[in-house]
């Protein structure tokens, strides 16, 4: 009865994109509201989907649509959601909407808001993002191998343009590297999918999952798992197939980075949960130790790479390699606990790293660089709110319990402590120990980053004013602040001090605009602005919510995971 919902989830953004092609001139004046409306409707549909979802039946696909598409190939237009894909669909719709909010809220003249003719091609940007949304949501809804592949590939092209047109200085080579690398991975994956098709004669993911690998010999399963796995591992990305990621992230515009980290990487890990493990269980058992080994290498390697990184965006990109290592380790355990952990970490990473890239973008716009030594420290003094939210996001990312990042990693490690019985336990104990050390290294690089960027005294002389205010005992009039006309325009910084980790809630926008309204002096940076706050608060709230109440997500995924593991669990 609600079967139209998944179709509508794809149709709305697609319609939005097509209308832009048909009547560009008509829509130009309303472009900002346009993207907001279409992604907002999509988000509303996604929320409706979550509301109508039958949570007692989270293990089976619901709200399915199953129509023949290309009968000659046996290709069917088969969509549906279950407990695994539902959180990801909602996450995708949410992040896309927040990206539009970020781009178009308020007067849309801030440097990060690209929807002005001055920054170039606003119509193309809206079009690109809407097409991207179609591909991303489609990937999570598809229940047919080839349909999955089609959506998986649809995503690449808008992302390529997003990096190549609106990216930073080295955008061209980064975009080419991104698309060639991921395309190459996809080709290998296609071969694996075709191998499954050739052996079983069906492309239906539901039927294939229920068969649990029946009809395929062990050798075929191993081969198919390796091929599909490599394709997915490029996207995830798994060490050593990750090098496209730092370049793409560093060069992509803020919204590109957010969607890349928040959603695109999830498509790779989602593929493991949807296709590779349930369809090819015997192949999974053979490959799992290798997957686990590469995962923990990725954790430690990513953390070490972060530790010596100078560029903030690049550091966050490498942190994704480490976090995705935890996700892959969870999958490699082939236990309900581990896969649950992986899926949780997946969603948590989408929220947290999405927020981190928003913040990195905001910093880059203000300082003109994301090079940490050039930032010079003291952000909690110059931009107290931005520094506080950055602290919050970094702490969430390093896996403090009570915030979303913890549960996924903890469950992945617990899964590795007791992997599926067919797997060598000693080996996974080693993986667990290395993963645990990786968690310490993760904490190390985030705290070192915070120390470099947010602590200390600000280096720039123009900004030393607020630093004097914030220094304990420095409330008296210093020589440099008498006579400076800006002293009145910055009192908020004094009153606000620096809340070091928590968001400031809905009361901030008024105060922030108040701060800046008496003509901010040239070169002075403004703290969090309205459009940024509106885009970030939902992420902050969700990070807290999932951290304090992990049951929300775990009770959704557990039955689905138990079904997909089938014989293994």
């Amino acid at each position, binding site marked *: 009865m609600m079967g139209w919902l998944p179709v509508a989830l794809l149709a709305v953004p697609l319609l939005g994109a097509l209308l832009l092609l048909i009547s560009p001139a008509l829509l130009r004046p309303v472009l900002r509201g346009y993207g907001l409306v279409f992604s907002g409707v999509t988000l509303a549909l996604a929320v409706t989907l979550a509301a109508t979802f039958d949570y007692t039946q989270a293990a089976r696909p619901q709200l399915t649509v199953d129509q023949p598409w290309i009968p000659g190939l046996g290709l069917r237009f088969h969509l549906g959601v279950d407990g695994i894909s539902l959180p990801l669909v909602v996450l995708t719709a949410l992040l896309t909407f927040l990206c539009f909010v970020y781009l178009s809220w308020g007067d849309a003249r801030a440097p990060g808001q690209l929807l002005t003719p001055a920054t170039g091609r606003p119509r193309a940007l809206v079009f690109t993002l809407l097409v991207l949304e179609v591909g991303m949501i489609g990937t999570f809804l598809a229940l047919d191998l080839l349909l999955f592949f089609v959506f998986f590939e649809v995503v690449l092209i808008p992302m390529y343009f997003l990096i190549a047109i609106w990216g930073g200085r080295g955008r061209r080579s980064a975009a080419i590297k991104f698309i060639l690398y991921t395309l190459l991975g996809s080709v290998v994956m296609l071969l694996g999918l075709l191998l499954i098709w050739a052996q079983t004669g069906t492309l239906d993911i539901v039927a294939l999952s229920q068969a649990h690998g029946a009809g395929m010999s062990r050798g075929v399963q191993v081969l198919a798992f390796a091929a599909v796995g490599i394709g997915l591992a490029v996207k995830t990305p798994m060490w050593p197939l990750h090098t496209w990621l730092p370049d793409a992230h560093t060069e992509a515009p803020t919204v590109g980075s957010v969607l890349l980290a928040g959603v695109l990487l999830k498509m790779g890990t989602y593929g493991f949960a949807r296709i590779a493990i349930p369809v090819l269980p015997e192949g999974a058992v053979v490959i799992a130790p290798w997957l686990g080994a590469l995962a923990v290498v990725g954790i430690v390697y990513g953390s070490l790479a972060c530790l010596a990184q100078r560029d903030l965006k690049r550091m966050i990109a490498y942190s994704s390699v480490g976090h995705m290592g935890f996700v892959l380790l969870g999958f490699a355990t082939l236990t*309900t606990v581990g896969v649950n952990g992986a899926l949780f970490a997946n969603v948590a990473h989408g929220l947290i790293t999405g927020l981190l890239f928003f913040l990195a973008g905001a910093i880059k716009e203000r300082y003109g660089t994301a090079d940490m030594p050039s930032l010079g420290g*003291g952000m909690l003094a110059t931009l107290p709110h931005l520094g506080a939210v950055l602290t919050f996001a970094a702490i969430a990312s390093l896996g403090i319990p009570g915030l979303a990042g913890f549960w996924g990693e903890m469950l992945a490690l617990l899964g590795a402590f007791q992997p599926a019985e067919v797997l060598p336990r000693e080996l996974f104990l080693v993986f667990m120990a290395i993963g645990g050390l990786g968690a310490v290294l993760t904490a190390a690089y985030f705290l070192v980053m915070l120390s470099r960027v947010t602590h200390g005294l600000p280096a720039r002389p123009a900004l030393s004013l607020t630093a004097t205010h914030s220094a304990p005992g420095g409330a008296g009039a210093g020589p440099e602040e008498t006579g400076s006309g800006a002293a009145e325009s910055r009192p908020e910084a004094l009153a606000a001090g620096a809340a070091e980790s928590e968001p400031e809630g809905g009361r901030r926008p008024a105060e922030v605009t108040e701060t800046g309204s008496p003509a901010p002096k040239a070169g002075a940076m403004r703290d969090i602005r309205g459009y940024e706050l509106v885009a970030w608060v939902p992420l902050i709230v969700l990070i807290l919510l999932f951290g304090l109440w992990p049951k929300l997500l775990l009770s959704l995924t557990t039955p689905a995971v138990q079904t997909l593991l089938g014989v293994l669990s």
Partner: protein
Amino acid sequence: MTTFPLLAVLLPFAAAFAGLLLSRRPRLRAPDTPETRAAAARGRAGWFAIIPTAASAVLAIWLAWGPGFAFIEGASPGEPVGRTYGTIVTGGIPISLTLQAGDLSAILGVLVTLVALAVQIYSVGYLHDDPRYPSYSSFISLFTSAMLLVVYAGDLLVLYVGWEIMGLCSYLLIGHWWEDRANSRAAVKAFLVTRLGDVGFLFGIFVLGVSAGSFRIDDVLAEVPEMSTGTLVAATMLLLAGVAGKSAQVPLHTWLPDAMAGPTPISALIHAATMVAAGIFIVARLFPAFLAARPTLDVLAIIAALGMLGAALAALAQDDLKRVLAYSTVSQLAYMAGGLAAGSDSAAIFHLLTHGAFKALLFLCAGAVIHHIGSNLMSQMGGLRRTLPITFVTMTVGFAALMGLPPASGFFSKDALLLTMERALTGGRLTDAAALLLYGCALATVAVTGAYATRAWLRTFFGEARAVALPEPQPGTAHVVDVREAPRTMLVPIVLLAVPALLLGFAGGPHLDLEVAALSVVLALLGGGVVYAFWRSDPVADPSRLLGPFLVPCERAFYVDSLYTAAFVRPLQTMARLVVRTDDRVVDGAVRGSGRTAQRLSGMLRLLQNGNVQLYVTGLLAGVLLIVVGAVVFA
């Protein structure tokens, strides 16, 4: 009453959010200058901080009213008060959201909330003109809430949540004055060192939980007799890593002295009620598991023996008053660990309580002294007994308790610990060598404790006043004020804490062993007497010169920090740089290389496409010829 543990945890938790989000809300009708607004924010934040903590304290006292000191008296355990608020499915062993107060938890809850309350009240005066007071007091509330979660948790993973959040709060509070990079480094160090231990702790929880089939503490303890020794040793050793991290025991003790970078009330909080107490608490909470794992007890005894003497010697050589107290905490915690290793959890918890009272008192007094002088260094103090009479009296009580002089509280609890260690010599679970080392070190430490406490007391309050008012305080030190004594918000908590520091020893029915008691008092007085003799001979010079050639190693805490830097930090940094280089040259180099190879190959193919029609026709003909020949031959 069953919801009291939950309420006690939630109240400060809510207070933390309220303090952060609501205290800076602009008031509607007040005159709106920045100064009044900041003052209003501080005032609001102060109430947000104090009222919920006080409410939690009332709840905790209510919970402890029934059992009283039953745990210390060794009475049979009563029924825990609390309930389960549902379970979290994980796909494997579920996490049960249980909060309950048994005999041990109830009494510790009182310690935590009362010290936290004292610290909150004291901070109002201490950070009077700190613009970041609202975030500071909110983090203390969060800290209190996390520690109460540890204390009342009925499930190991719920306990771990509180355990880790404490690490975060210590990071945020130690780095409160982050303008100074040194404070920031100290905060990072505290977090990382404890986190390293916490990873082991988490794995220890896994071992216990998986072998018991449940993470509920009651279930785990019920299953302990069924577990194999190997499992128990592995689990307790891993837990010990977390204990060493949080309770600042060798080899993970290095963060605690550096943590003095934080504001002094924070030191009181960390050293007395939260964080460091958690490690001792968890060993006592899971004591049956530790008792069944003898090798772990031996390791604990050796760690404790090394830690108590080493830290006491280090305390004797420090010039920073707060660092003296910090090393003294490491040493006193090692006492408790030694007591646990010797087989008595009640003695250890008794000392934890008295130590909580007198160490909080000592830190708050030190804060008052520092507040007055504007410096942490004892070489700039002296003669303060006239200018700070109240602080002098209360701090004297604190030092007496620390030395273990009767009738102060420390005397009774230290006596109980020494008695346990002595009994472990003859019959106990420890190996003879470990028991001997433990008892020997404990006695030596009593003497050294007497020495460093006397030294700090003399150098602070006697002799000539050396203080020179600093022109402008550096970030990281308290603001200089020109009053004779500290403001009332600071004095009231000090005086109130002096009462339990003096009298808590009589609680729970003191059992004195005259022989051990006499020995320890004589040793402490001996240590103090030697220092006094040195001080009398030259009141200006530092009596720590009695250490002779060992002074510098003691002052540097036996170079453990330098060793760790050389052994772990630098290699890690090198490895990190190596990884970045490898990533660029090898991993990404292979990618770029394959791209270049493809370009070169296509470049060769391009040579054929040179636009020369004759060449194309020749190629065409050659192809046709090949096909014809092939067809003829293979047909």
